[in-house]
């Protein structure tokens, strides 16, 4: 569904992504794991059109999308849940949900109910300003907002960042649920353990290069991954 080949992106004058290639098959969960500064966020931002690419191609559903402005890329069916949630603090919860469907002209009632079913907490707080929500609730809102564009592919940038373990588990349950309902997911995480358990396939990113790839289960068993990302000593 999404084919990245030889993608190169510069970030602040340095080459943050040095020619990586990977694919995200339809209806799968694919994860990129890696340390801080490995180029994970930059990759997602490049796919979303927020940063220009230096080389390579990004193909989505058989069409080139590299070079399109962000608002066009949303229209093709890709959406990004940005790092740090970035809900609009001065808009109400309901407005945040509605603005996710900004490009749509049809009736939103069913989809709003869908989001409320996934996150009943948001329904209770629909009239509250998003800035007053807790971190976990803001993450739910960010995901709900992204769903409102009826995406075929959701990219999530560190959904577990700064959240309590219990809430993180809840968010991951929802991610799997959304995937079950037919949405493809590209997930980046520092919490490698959690991400690999959820994912069908994973790639390990190190300083701008992909160094390993395999199914979630394979990577969880890989000695190098264990040592570097799962905090277990090599035997």
């Amino acid at each position: 569904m999404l084919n990245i080949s030889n993608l190169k992106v510069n970030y602040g004058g340095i080459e943050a992504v040095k020619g990586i290639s990977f694919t995200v098959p339809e209806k799968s969960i694919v994860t990129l794991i890696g340390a801080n500064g490995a180029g994970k966020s930059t990759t997602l931002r490049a796919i979303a059109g927020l940063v220009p690419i230096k080389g390579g191609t990004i193909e989505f559903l058989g069409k080139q999308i590299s070079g399109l402005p962000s608002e066009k890329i949303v229209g093709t069916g890709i959406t990004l849940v940005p790092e740090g949630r970035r809900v609009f603090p001065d808009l109400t919860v309901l407005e945040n949900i509605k603005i996710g469907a900004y490009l749509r002209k049809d009736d939103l009632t069913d989809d709003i109910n869908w989001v409320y079913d996934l996150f009943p907490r948001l329904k209770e707080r629909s009239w509250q300003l998003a800035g007053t929500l807790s971190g976990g609730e803001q993450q739910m809102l960010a995901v709900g907002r992204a769903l409102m564009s009826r995406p075929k592919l959701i990219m999530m940038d560190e959904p577990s960042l700064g959240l309590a373990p219990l809430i993180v588990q809840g968010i991951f349950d929802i991610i799997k649920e959304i995937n079950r309902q037919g949405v493809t997911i590209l997930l980046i995480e520092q919490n490698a353990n959690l991400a690999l358990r959820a994912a069908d396939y994973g790639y390990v990113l190190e300083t701008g290069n992909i160094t390993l790839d395999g199914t979630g289960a394979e990577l969880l068993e890989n000695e190098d991954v264990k040592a570097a990302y799962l905090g277990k000593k090599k035997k």
Partner: protein
Amino acid sequence: MSLTTILQHCLTGISLGGAYALIAIGYTMVYGILRLINFAHGDIFMMAGYFMIFAMASFPWQVAIPLVIVGTIVMGVVIERVAYKPLRTAPRMSIMISAIGVSYLLQNLATYLFTAIPRGYPEIPFLKKIFHIGALSASLVTFLTPVLTILLVIFLMLLIKKTKVGMAMRAVSKDFETSQLMGIKINNIISATFVIGSALAAVGSILYFTDRMSVTPFSGTLPGLKCFVAAVFGGIGSIPGAVVGGFVIGIAETLLVAMGYSTFSDAFTFLLLIVMLLFRPTGLFGEKSTDKV
């Protein structure tokens, strides 16, 4: 001073305040979305004055007024596209300097094209009709200005609170990047802001100059600065704040003149700015932050 005289001056002050409020909204909205003090706004207001002179020379007022509003909107949007848009990613100081440049450009362009000799502002007969309420008497424009101001502000608030464009404006004013991820075209929303600001400046200009009789290339400077103060006083970024600021300054200024301190009426405005910045830099209705860290 008798009560009637005081009321009479209050009425004049409210009317002046209404015109100030309309201009101040332009400052506050552009600041809200671009974090830019649009120093050219006062000069856009001045140019709207000249547009009216030329429009009225060939058309009746019913045609001239819409024409002036449209002309001012086009000018505002073009200024944004040419002088501010290319600096979107530049440091904020650069775009501010560009705004100062546009301000001088407009003043000098007006001087070059229309000379610095004051030009008589055309009379719109029905606006000049004198009305009496009890012992008070004033021209229709004096009564009309505050009413029109309030109506336009209510309309604007509804637009911002209830419509999709308004929602997008509030989103863009907080976060460009995430707004783009929602599919919002940032540049269109910024243009919409300039459309509204310029349209209100045009209306404000008609109401203001109808009472002033003449326009010079520098007619926009002082009112522009005062309206900027009004916006800061009310809390820049806040529309109700700008309206309250506009009325406060308009009324205070008129009353000072009435009491015989006309020399100090402008000084008062800037004193107000200093006091406000010292004791409450965010202004009356300054941005309250709901961000949770």
